[in-house]
């Protein structure tokens, strides 16, 4: 660069790179940032009003029953529980996939896991409804085939059913990043630890777990953010009392047509979700860069 100071700044721009990146740029700016910015602006106006105000944000503390805060708090708590449960279910599976199964078995296992996810989320949720409902498959098995229950039980429409379907729906999002971290873990590290006197628990604690942490964090973040923003599962499977924060936002936008308040709710959601993600990264000592790479 210093060799030829006469070169115009335009020449220094790599137009090839710019052109290649253009669709991405248009995508990010035009379809992501721009509408978000519009919503952000709206959140500072009252519906139909034209003065900037924090009223929409403050309204969450003023509403008589603190519905937003209650629903928000419950959603947050449940989402964290969902993320933790999904981790507990997915980790052993990921471990078996990465370290126990070989070649073809691996392929079959992945196929078995992934095939249900080739169909639409809605259809999968309806499949669960068909399983769990009072006249569903599970009750049929328990009552008519195994005869362990005298009469059918309604498994649907409660928080536990909702958690089950959530965990199922997001299992792969947890499993795959953990699998990929564990797959990258050299087996000789496990052997080395054993050779240096570590028992199974110590091998897990000092070798396997730290190596899987980027995947675990990435899985936790994915499951957390996606269940936090999920609408379908709480609506269809959740009970008469399981209002989710997204339903609240949907109500603002669609039922009440109050986009300004809906926007404010959305940005509170975004802020809290970002905060939790940041907290997760801090807690696990991971960086976003590392986690995204896994």
């Amino acid at each position: 660069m210093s060799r030829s100071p006469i070169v115009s700044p335009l020449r220094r721009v790599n137009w090839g790179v710019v052109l290649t990146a253009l669709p991405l740029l248009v995508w990010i700016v035009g379809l992501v940032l721009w509408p978000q910015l519009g919503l952000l602006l709206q959140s500072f106006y009252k519906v139909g009003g034209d003065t900037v105000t924090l009223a929409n944000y403050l309204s969450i503390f003023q509403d008589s029953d603190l519905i937003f805060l209650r629903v928000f708090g419950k959603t947050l708590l449940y989402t964290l529980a969902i993320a933790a449960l999904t981790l507990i279910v997915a980790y052993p599976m990921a471990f078996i996939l990465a370290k126990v199964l070989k070649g073809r078995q691996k392929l079959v296992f992945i196929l078995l896991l992934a095939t249900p996810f080739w169909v639409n989320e809605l259809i999968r949720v309806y499949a669960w409804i068909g399983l769990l409902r009072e006249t569903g498959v599970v009750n049929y098995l328990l009552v008519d085939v195994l005869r362990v229950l005298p009469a059918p039980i309604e498994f649907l429409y409660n928080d536990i059913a909702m958690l089950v379907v959530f965990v199922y729906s997001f299992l792969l999002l947890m499993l795959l990043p953990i699998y990929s971290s564990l797959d990258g873990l050299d087996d000789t590290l496990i052997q080395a630890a054993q050779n240096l006197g570590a028992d199974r628990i110590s091998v897990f604690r000092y070798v396997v777990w730290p190596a899987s942490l980027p995947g675990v964090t990435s899985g936790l973040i994915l499951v957390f953010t996606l269940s936090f923003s999920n609408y379908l599962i709480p609506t269809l499977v959740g009970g008469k009392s399981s209002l989710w924060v997204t339903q609240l936002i949907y109500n603002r936008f669609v039922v009440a047509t109050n986009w300004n308040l809906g926007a404010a709710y959305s940005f509170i959601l975004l802020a809290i979700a970002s905060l939790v993600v940041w907290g997760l990264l801090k807690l696990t000592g991971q960086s976003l860069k590392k986690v995204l790479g896994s």
Partner: protein
Amino acid sequence: MLKRRNLFSLTVWACVILTTACSGTTTDTAATDADTAATGDELGGTLRLLTWEGYAPDELIAKFEEETGVDVEVTYIADNGEIISKLKATGGEGYDLASPSVDNVKLAQEQFNIYQPIDMSRIENPDVLVQSLAEKVAEYSTVDGEVYSVPAVWGTSGLIVNTAEAPEVKSYKDLCDPQFAGRVTYRSRFPTFAGAMLALGYDPFKFSLEEPENVDGWRAMMEEAYTYLVDCKSNVKTYWTSRQENIDLMAKGETYLSQGWDGTGWVLSQENPDIKFIAPVEGALGWVDTFTIPAGAKNLDAVYAFINFMYRPENAGELTKGGGFLSPVKGSTDYWPEEIKVLVEESFPESALNNIQWYAPRPAAFDEVVNEYVEKLQVAEAN
């Protein structure tokens, strides 16, 4: 006021079900349309509908496309708010014809200016409509002297009952009868509150027409209905969110009693004769969905062609056949299959017809209160 509404519903039913006198026009209209089709005067282009499931049956769409050469694209919505949101987002662009409920049109138009007035001169045969219904729709959808809607489909919501399990049901109050604990389903939306208010002896529609400024009064009524529904919550298996969910719950015998649409009830009756749609003693809740044209509609020729097409009785009759929806077109009953006729007449004896409670437009402030209580109901713990 009450008298006027009674008169209104009477006339509707007089024409739609009980008399066949109005159907004299049927043949004429059909003949005229047949002529038009014969000339091969094809419109072409695309017609983008924003409507409810069941309002645009495939056979009708195919027939319309064949007659006019117009390509029809249908987008389904499940909530009036969705229509408003979609059109609000684009300033009325993206669709050519929408079907909001009439009680929603005025407020949406005043707030967001998303529709355009109907050009009545382009409705080929306005006389084919049940006049009282057409007038009501015109009245409720007039903004600044312009009419924005014509009727498309109407119906009611009331009680869907499995008479084998719950033979004595006749009132909204029965939804909260402890003997049906866990066997009841309804929506957590305004119709449920309206039913509860009627059960408690209030008339929410009269109130919103006569005292639109009285938000405190409205709130007090909503609060009472809310308390009543929270007490009732232990009875509810789940709040249904889609027509299909309501059908599944009733058809599988998981619930015995539901507050839902008449058409849903009649679909269920054809599957299981024990299940019936009943107009409760407090009155079924009557709604009218409309043809309303978004401000940014592109293909107005196709829009009016479609409205005129749907106003032909033989086409209008199809709506009832498939989904149990009722048409405001005189003589459409002639095209009903016998079993539907029987079901409709069974659900609506004359006294029930007279007692239909028609939804009236609500002020925005009322809706805010409604939304607040709808959510409170969902958050509340069942007793």
